[in-house]
């Protein structure tokens, strides 16, 4: 009796699911090449660098709108920490890192489905308080004010070292922050006068801080590679998300966020 009833319930659920899938199939996503691609549904797990947070959150919404039935679940963090957790066996479909060096951790472990592709580039800017009260014009002015840099272990810190070297400037910061958002917060709260952060971070926080561009940033361009994982639990979803990153729609969102899209 009980089993008969549960069987009935299960059939009903299946029928409903079939009807729902039929509905979505009638409503093909508007993106290029998605019509004939394998069906995309379920959760797509994306590990992405902290600096991608704003733009990827937006892209995730648009992706879900384009692929009803698919859901994107993000984990934003320091690229190195994300790479470590992927190597430790985290079930991930797509990994977007803020530097080739952190991506190398994952490719060296032979965990990637294909070769990583550089999908955006990011440059540094000097973040200063609104109105630039200390009149900071370039890297050479950082020696005289209280500065926050990213720790050299994380990509934004490595880029800062390169840029400062290119400018021939030595800066002893008040602090080496553990990620770029930490360096940004310290400026926002007025605890330091300046910090070296990504151009995209300045754009995302434009209401509270100003950015100062400097020529040496061209020497310290950060490539962001993205890749799908070989053991992706949702391989179709991973492929669709990578495809979507290449779409005009996604490129526009990324450009607006301040990234250079190659």
């Amino acid at each position, binding site marked *: 009796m009980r089993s008969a009833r549960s069987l009935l319930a299960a059939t009903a659920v299946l029928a409903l699911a079939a009807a729902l899938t039929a509905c979505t199939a009638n409503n093909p996503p508007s993106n290029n090449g998605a019509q004939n691609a394998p069906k995309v549904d379920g959760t797509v797990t994306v590990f992405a660098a902290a600096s991608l947070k704003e733009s990827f959150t937006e892209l995730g919404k648009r992706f879900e709108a384009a692929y009803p039935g698919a859901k994107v679940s993000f984990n934003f963090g320091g690229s*190195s920490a994300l790479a470590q957790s992927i190597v430790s066996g985290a079930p991930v479909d797509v990994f977007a890192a803020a530097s080739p060096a952190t991506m190398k951790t994952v490719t060296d472990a032979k965990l990637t489905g294909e070769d990583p592709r550089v999908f955006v580039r990011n440059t540094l800017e000097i973040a200063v308080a609104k109105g630039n009260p200390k009149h900071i014009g370039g890297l050479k002015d950082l020696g005289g004010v209280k500065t926050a840099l990213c720790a050299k272990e*994380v990509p934004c810190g490595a880029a800062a070292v390169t840029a400062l070297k290119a400018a021939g400037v030595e800066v002893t910061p008040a602090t*080496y922050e553990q990620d770029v958002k930490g360096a940004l917060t310290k400026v926002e709260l007025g605890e330091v006068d300046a910090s070296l952060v990504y151009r995209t971070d300045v754009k995302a926080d434009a209401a509270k801080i100003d950015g100062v561009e400097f020529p040496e940033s061209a020497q310290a361009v950060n490539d962001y590679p993205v890749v799908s994982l070989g053991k992706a639990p949702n391989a179709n979803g991973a492929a669709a998300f990578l495809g979507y990153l290449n779409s005009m729609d996604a490129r526009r969102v990324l450009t607006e966020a301040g990234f250079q899209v190659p």
Partner: protein
Amino acid sequence: MSTPRTTPAPHPRGRRRPRGATRVPAALLLPALLGLAFLVLPLLGLLIRAPWSALPALLTGPEVWQALRLSLISATAATGVSLLLGVPLAWLLARTDFPGRRLLRALVTLPLVLPPVVGGVALLLVLGRAGIVGRWLDAATGITLPFTTAGVVVAETFVAMPFLVISVEGALRAADPRYEEAAATLGASRLTAFRRVTLPLVAPGIGAGAVLAWARALGEFGATITFAGNFPGRTQTMPLAVYLAMESDPQAAIALSLILLAVSIAVLAGLRDRWMSTP
């Protein structure tokens, strides 16, 4: 002072009690062992996966010892500040009665539940260079706390002091107030009674609280990196060094953790008999 010498000692150091009375019920033993394994196994994992052969090379850098020294100094200083401010606070909560005392107690324990990073931001908002109090401090004295070793001590005290307050308050509540009353009837002022009667009475509780606070301060990460930042030799304590090593070299992070672990075990084991009441 804790146990009178005249007490018969049928079970020295708590072992070898009469049989039957001490048979451990399986319903308690099983979860107890499971709990023990749960706490100890991750530490064992750290030991097993430690890069023993590379250890000397990983640990000879001056930054390691700098970080360890800073950790020990700042945790001890934070414990000192916690004792100076926390014991009187615990006394106030346990021995006086005023409206809003319950609320006050809840506020005191708030740092226990607050994510330490939030605690760090809160400290910045108040004591930072642009903070409510910090701005005034900067203007009056030129002192700014963030990014200094003093800032590390402030952050660690904020997180660790509630442990001490709770422990001492518990000890005060368990202590018999009649001793203090007797002292008062003999003419001692309330301060004298506190100093000469109460303090010795709750010394084990203070000791236990101090050890807890020290251990918490030693492991402090979130509030420290948020409020005091991260600069080698000045504000980079061991947990910060471990976190950053984890970003680039997990082997080095494990090696650093081992050092912190060894020092903590040595200090806690050394203090246990002296300070903590172990009936």
